[in-house]
């Protein structure tokens, strides 16, 4: 299994990236976690994606349709305050899809770390997407 973060001697907290990683690995129990090599500089921040496989489908309209559906999801850790300041622009998202994800990625999942101790997850789809059925 790939896992770049072999050092868990330090408690989470040194970085947002680490917080999201541990959340996926040890709270949501994702598998095959890996930090993707590609990096992008955006307004003084380095953006990097964590990829991995959740224990079950994230959305119930994920079934079928996509033949290269390998169940891998792409997660972008980001500070909530960054988001508030409007750093995540359309251009930035384009950059993320183009340079950070493999070409067949349908969506990325934003992991917003907030100062109240929670990480919120939001989907961002490339282009128009059929609304999810509840």
């Amino acid at each position: 299994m790939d896992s770049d973060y072999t050092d868990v001697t330090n408690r989470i907290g040194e970085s947002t990236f680490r917080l999201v990683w541990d959340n996926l690995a040890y709270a949501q129990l994702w598998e095959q976690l890996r930090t993707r090599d590609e990096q992008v500089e955006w307004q003084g921040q380095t953006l990097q994606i964590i990829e991995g496989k959740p224990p079950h489908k994230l959305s119930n309209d994920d079934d079928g349709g996509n033949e290269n559906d390998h169940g891998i999801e792409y997660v972008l850790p980001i500070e909530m305050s960054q988001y508030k300041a409007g750093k995540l622009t359309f251009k930035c998202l384009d950059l993320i899809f183009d340079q950070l994800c493999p070409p067949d990625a349908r969506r990325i999942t934003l992991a917003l770390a907030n100062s109240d101790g929670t990480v919120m997850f939001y989907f961002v789809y490339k282009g128009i997407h059929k609304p999810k059925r509840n």
Partner: protein
Amino acid sequence: MGKRKPSSARYKYPLPIHPIELPPLIPHNPISWVYWTYCYFSSVNGLTNKIHVEFFNDKYVHIVVKDDSQMNYLWENGFFGTGQLSRSEPTWKNRTHNRLADSDGHGNALEKVTQHRRLLRLEFKKQREKMEQELLELRRKGGTIEQEKELLEQQRKSLRVYKSQQSSAEVLPHEETIRDIDLLLFTDDGKIRQLESLELMPVEAMFLTFALPVLDITAKDLTRRLVGIPEKYEDIHQFISQYVVYHHYRSHGWCARSGVKFGCDYLLYQRGPPLEHAEFCVRILNSNDIKDYNWYSSLARVVAGANKTYVLCYVESLRSPETILRWWHQGNYKSIFSSYKVGEITYKRWIPGKNRE
């Protein structure tokens, strides 16, 4: 956590500082008087060991408590903070212990129950989808209305049966296996490392230093970590109004927690998250703020969808920005926070045809 204490005993106190309980006084017994007087003068209710907090990330500060018993104490006495790897109460270590060590699944943590319910719901949806496919198939073949009705009736029945079977099914403890990355969680002597910290919102930390002597830092040190040394009033305005509102509700006995998941500032609980759902969503506004109608209605619809009441909380400053800033530099937080007025409005969508009480 694992302890099976009734919640009334576990969450006896609404705040981390408890009232002093004096012994009963028996008026005709002089020893009782002596003892009572002794207790009256000698009792203290401050914490003997203040709670240690640490900070990380310089740009956007996160405030964390790392000691297990202190995390637990803050949670049990007023529901302060959130476990970074949990929904709210820091249960990660226990959950992980249950997952990896004893797989008999004792003590179903909230997360496990929620997960199970979601899985059931997902199964149900799959069933429903299958039935819709059947109906479509029938239509494609050109079935009559009668046939359609019959099919629908059948499906309704079988869905009902399916649902009742589901709800009577026990929560099955999942057969979890230990993954490779889980091995990193164990210490050399086979214990599970604590990865989780309790994170405090900036306003919670301020409340636990300025209003109650609970944390081991001073209010001045805390604000310095949060906003540095502010040059203009705008740098501190948001924090002050958030704190004033937080303090306002806490001092009226409400348990205020972050409302970020509902797009508002705070959620208000009568007692606390494990005991009931939040009743109110609070959104903070400056007293002179004017928003367009979409702003109010979009939030109102979200909040109403979660069955809560939407509260607009207006904060008005009674002093000039210069005065506030001067007090801030002097560390005179008491004067600052008492020079704001808070007023609230509840906002609710009204449908003439439906809401006719």
